[in-house]
């Protein structure tokens, strides 16, 4: 079953076209990674698919239904978004913040049920933030903050997760930790759309990759098909050496030194 189907969407900020005819599908159990240089439109794409921004042309269908036919609350029960950063300003605790993942399910006159608390507890456990539950969201590290936001998405209990650069600004240990967590979520049959900076990490963890440049998809498919010297040069404008395994699988890309 196709969870997300995007066809020929376009979007501009003012007169600048950011997304210029992008199409793709997203299936359950896959991690679709979007790679591209800064300003290529990755974050805008996440916002369009998540319904934060409205596309100007094309169609976005979520589970076969036009995205604009959903109310915000309905959409929030199917699609959760993990934004790239959080500047809370206010002193919420980690638990308060994860609990907000349940808000799309409770009405104005309801309170959390035992089941809600159970889901919140399990989400924090799965992401390893239980021990931080009473800490202020402002006292935790970058890696912990990402895990907390993923916990919130888990509490939201959606079939689709959109993640905007969950691993940038993290050192390599936390990058692996977060990506392992995401791989674990994929195995539960959920669909994940993710934007990333680090090409090597993307190759390792994404089941499919899309290279985007200037608001268009340059190529999309399994990492081994998409990443080659030519595509890296076309999209990023650098020369890279690609190291492959004996069986042809890509292991690493090394950018060429210019001077």
């Amino acid at each position, binding site marked *: 079953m196709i969870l997300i189907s995007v066809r020929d969407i376009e979007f501009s900020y003012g007169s600048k076209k950011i997304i210029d005819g992008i199409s793709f599908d997203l299936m359950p159990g896959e991690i679709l990674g979007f790679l591209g240089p800064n300003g290529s439109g990755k974050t805008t794409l996440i*916002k369009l698919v*998540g*319904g*934060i921004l409205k596309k100007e042309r094309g169609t976005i269908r979520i589970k076969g239904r036009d995205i604009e036919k959903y*109310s*915000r*609350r309905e*959409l*929030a*029960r199917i699609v*959760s*978004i*993990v*934004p790239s950063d*959080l*500047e*809370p*300003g*206010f*002193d*919420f*605790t980690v638990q*308060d*913040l994860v609990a*907000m*993942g349940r*808000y*799309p399910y*409770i009405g*104005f*006159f309801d309170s959390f049920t035992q089941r809600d608390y159970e889901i919140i507890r399990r989400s924090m456990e799965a992401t390893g933030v239980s021990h931080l539950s009473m800490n*202020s969201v*402002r*006292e935790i590290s970058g890696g912990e903050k990402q895990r907390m936001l993923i916990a919130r998405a888990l509490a*939201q209990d959606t079939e689709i997760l959109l993640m905007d650069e969950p691993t940038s600004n993290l050192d390599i240990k936390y990058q692996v930790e977060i990506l392992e967590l995401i791989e674990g979520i994929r195995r539960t049959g959920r669909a994940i759309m993710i934007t990333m900076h680090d090409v090597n990490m993307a190759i390792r963890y994404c089941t499919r990759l899309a290279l985007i440049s200037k608001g268009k998809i340059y190529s999309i498919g399994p990492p081994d098909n998409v990443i080659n010297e030519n595509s890296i040069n076309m999209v990023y404008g650098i020369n890279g050496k690609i190291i492959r395994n004996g069986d042809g699988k890509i292991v690493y890309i090394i950018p060429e030194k210019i001077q």
Partner: protein
Amino acid sequence: MKSRILLVISIIIFFLSIIFSLGTGAVSIPFTTVLNRLINPGNDVNSLIIWQLRMPRILLAALVGASLTVSGAVMQGLFRNPLADPYVTGTASGAALGATLSMFLGLFYLSIFFLPLFAFIGAFATTLVVLFISGISGSAKSENMLLAGIGVSIFLSAFVSLLLYLLGKDLLTVFYWLMGSFSGASWVYVYIMLIVSVPTIAIIGVMAMDLDPMMLGEDHAYSLGIDVKKIRIIFFVLSSLITGLSVAFSGIIGFVGLVIPHIVRILIGPKNRHLIASSIFIGASYMVIADTISRSFSIIMELPVGIVTSMIGVPVFLFLLVKQRNYWR
């Protein structure tokens, strides 16, 4: 748990502050007499003082205190700005212009009810203008709303200054009104507040949960199923409504709407359902006590209540702020 305890305590304080205030003033009435006359009103002097002089004033102070505090809490959350207060939407300057205009046109001298009427119209009309401007200038983003509010406020203040300059001799009346006072309180005002503000505050309280995701920023709010634009407009209009009404009946009282929400957040955290619930009673009690002090301070002339609210409240707030220095980054 903490929030329930605070709510219970603040409700108790609320009732105690009313009983205390009923007995305090130029004529002091013993506690037991107050309770007795509350249950069995008679025709004696004490009943008259309690029911006709003090009760409407105390209830008005309580309703205004609750309205301003709730409105301040909402504005701070909505704009994600610790400096936001009930007046950020231009209500204060709008009301000031309305009030000044009622004096300038001489209507104030026909009936004193023209002043609150004009003040309310000024306040609410300003809010709608700010909403409209921020809507066309940037799809009602919170920064646009704040900036539009500030811009319109400054513009209207210039007109107030102009009118005051032309008004000359009645300057003091307007000035005193601007500083805020409950001396004009009457049962009519109380009834209007009860009919309009109480249901509005109730709606805000019921919807308060939706403010939590708003406090994380727009993208987070969208992700958590909040219809950001709709929620922003609803809260903006509702809190401007109760602020406008408060200003119309009691002038521009500072501090309460800005600082009481911060104090409550320092005590129980930022979750808005709890924040709004406790703010209602703490704001109300605080205003009742401040007004009691302002009318008991001197027999010759009352102190403007705004002076009292700030002089007592600010040191308390600064103390809490120093104790919890991480409270707001």
